[in-house]
């Protein structure tokens, strides 16, 4: 499963800031944000396919990505270590420095 995954555990990734017209499940608050790969979930079907009845798609690798609260919300009042995670498919992610 990890062999098919482009991003390694701990890799820094940026979520694409696309705003496509079709269905997807990438929350707006994560788009354009940099996070860290915390788990590789293997390959799972794409909501971009399933929403339109394409149930025989190949799917794609999906990751649990950790975002620092302070990166998401500059006025975040809690400690630096607080985190939000989201499960995001590979095509939404690009390498980040």
């Amino acid at each position, binding site marked *: 499963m990890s062999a098919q995954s482009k991003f390694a555990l701990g890799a820094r990734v940026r979520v694409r800031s696309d705003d496509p017209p079709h269905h997807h*499940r*990438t*929350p707006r*608050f994560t788009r354009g944000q940099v996070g860290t790969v915390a*788990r590789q*979930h293997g390959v*799972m*079907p794409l*909501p971009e396919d399933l929403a339109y009845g394409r149930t025989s798609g190949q799917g794609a690798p*999906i990751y*649990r990505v*950790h975002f620092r*609260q302070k990166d*998401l*919300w500059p006025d*975040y*009042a*809690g*400690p630096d*270590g*607080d*985190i*939000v*995670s*989201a*499960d*995001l*498919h590979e095509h939404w992610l690009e390498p980040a420095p």
Partner: protein
Amino acid sequence: MSHPHDHDHDHDGDHAPPKDEGAGDYALLEQAMRELLIEKGVITADGVRRMIERLDEASPATGARIVARAWTDPAFKKALLDDAGSALSAFGFGPMGKFIALENTPDTHNVIVCTLCSCYPRFVLGFPPDWYKSTAYRSRVVREPRAVLQEFGLDLPDSTRVVVSDSTAEIRYMVVPMRPRGTEGMSEPDLAALVHRDALIGTAVVAPPSP
């Protein structure tokens, strides 16, 4: 006003048959879709019935049993945290799909949400509470989790990291709360009785048993 109860009349609604409100648009849509899928052989009526039965049987008591087992059986706990789906199949549950159990520790407090809709680990916790589906909870817990948890009565020290897991895909999450002090030597069923729904979502912790 109260009156002596030697009834020869009926209170409104007391013994009246339940009113059928009539099917709404979504119910009609569901019925039409279900009948078509059955007719085309994609699903069966018995399959739908079994799925409803399985969902109705699930309740936070199921999650509580899982947690009590994890607290008393280190091998099960390790398996649960490594791959909850497989561990639960061995525990007698049907196929779980992709399922992850998140362990709360003194250093890390986990809480789950679905900001996009209302994804919830229904096969182990039953149906979600109304607040879990509310816009207020879904939008606020990813933005100011500590304030939200405080409103639930949970005041976490800054030394505890708060990790909010947003269920944005087909992966379902459940929280394994910390075992409270003063529960050494308690039986698995007694421990399960201490575990309640909100502790499995992460908006509460399990309190020590009252003396």
